[in-house]
């Protein structure tokens, strides 16, 4: 006699639901009220609960940088951050970098300089580069390499990535110089 197969889902038994903490995050400019278990990482919140799958899970241990996002303008590894701890913060993901159809300068530079192949590390690379530029510590190519060392690319697109970041930094510098010239009259 065959074992009867039940189609009803097995109910959870003794273990209750996790406590849900309320938090407010402004994500790509939009304020969101959320409820999450305390152990949910910011990365999982973005990908699983908000369908913002642009940010990638590479290693989930802070070693590859694929999960890099900007929190209050600062680049961090979202896999090593609990969502609840970022209550009240502004989060910018790769989805939030472009303004409607216009690409962010870093995105445009990545295309121009062939800075990706499979594209998996790319959202993290771009968010990290945006963070690097705003930090303002990279003075030359070696600095860019060193300060981007938290983002790994298995396809080896590093030369293109560095060239793209270098170009954006140069354009920014030119932009500043032009501003100064304009202001000088």
């Amino acid at each position: 006699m065959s074992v009867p197969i039940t189609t009803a889902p097995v109910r959870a038994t003794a273990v209750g639901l996790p406590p849900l903490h309320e938090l407010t995050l402004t994500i790509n400019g939009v304020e969101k009220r959320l409820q999450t278990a305390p152990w949910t990482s910011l990365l999982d919140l973005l990908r699983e609960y908000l369908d913002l799958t642009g940010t990638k899970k590479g290693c989930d241990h802070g070693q590859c940088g694929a999960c890099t996002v900007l929190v209050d303008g600062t680049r961090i590894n979202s896999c090593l951050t609990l969502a609840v701890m970022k209550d009240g913060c502004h989060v910018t993901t790769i989805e939030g970098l472009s303004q409607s159809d216009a690409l962010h300068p870093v995105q445009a530079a990545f295309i121009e300089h062939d800075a990706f192949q499979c594209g998996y590390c790319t959202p993290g690379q771009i968010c990290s580069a945006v963070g690097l530029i705003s930090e303002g510590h990279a003075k030359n190519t070696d600095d860019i390499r060193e300060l981007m060392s938290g983002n790994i690319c298995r396809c080896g697109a590093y030369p293109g990535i560095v060239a793209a970041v270098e170009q954006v930094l140069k354009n920014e510098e030119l932009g500043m110089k032009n501003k100064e010239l304009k202001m000088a009259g």
Partner: protein
Amino acid sequence: MNSFTYTRAEAVATAVHETTADPTAKFIAGGTNLLDLMKENVERPDRLVDITRLPLQQIENLPDGGLRLGALATNAHTAYHPEVARRYPLLSKAILAGASAQLRNMATDGGNLMQRTRCYYFYDTATPCNKREPGTGCSAVGGYNRIHAILGTSESCIATHPSDMCVALAALEAVVNVTGPDGERRIPFTEFHRLPGDAPQFDNTLRPGELITSLDLPPQGFARHYTYLKLRDRASYAFALVSVAVGLELDGDTIREARVALGGVAHMPWRQPEAEALLQGQPATTEHFQRVAEALLRGAKGYSANTFKIELAKRAIVRALGLATSMQQPTYSV
């Protein structure tokens, strides 16, 4: 990761009280090491006390001419702080030699002291490890021990402390301010971490419930002659096999004061004031540097895969002292 209760501390006293009352509770700030360990089930706290909103982020001058680093100041903020960069560049360089930009943006100064070893046996819950589970044995001693210690080891544990910042703090003789259920304490940096002995499960000398509130840097920052030399398998984003923090006070070619601390070789940053004293009043020459190197590595013991560290450390010390004297920077430094 195990399920846990999460609370946010609004005051230092509450934070201390919560963790004293519950021995399975842990503070969380940057979380860059703790969450990693929780994902590996090495750490399984029942309760996390979020201390990130406590007023411990300031970096401010001390009346004696030193500098106080709030425990919650991030590593990045500290490294790039104008007063740190100007008066304690050794500390800046050491911090920037570690981890990645993203991690430095999250990691806190207090947390950097608290980070645990990256010994892969410690991380692997399927293997014996006296640090993780006292009494089970040390898998590294007879195993693959390339990244492990050569100084201050015991049969119980040959793990290293992985921090770069701590090597500089040891050289600078920082003081750790902590508060706990029994009040406040000041712990000289070289007494904060411990050697494994027969109780490797304890990384440091903090008592239950104690919270680091700040780190005090003394007035002497060795800003004119310093270097942080880090040797590792990759050009960046890797832990040190051997690292050396040097601070020198020079009078012409004569050394008036020297500090030399080693990373990557022991359960804590390695300093031997008797070895440093060999340089006092001496000319800054290779011959004297070599003498210090020999003294500092006295008693070094290699294991099957890390004996290379002994000679490497000696040469690194000589190189670092030379760099600090001439103020040429190592190849990779930002």
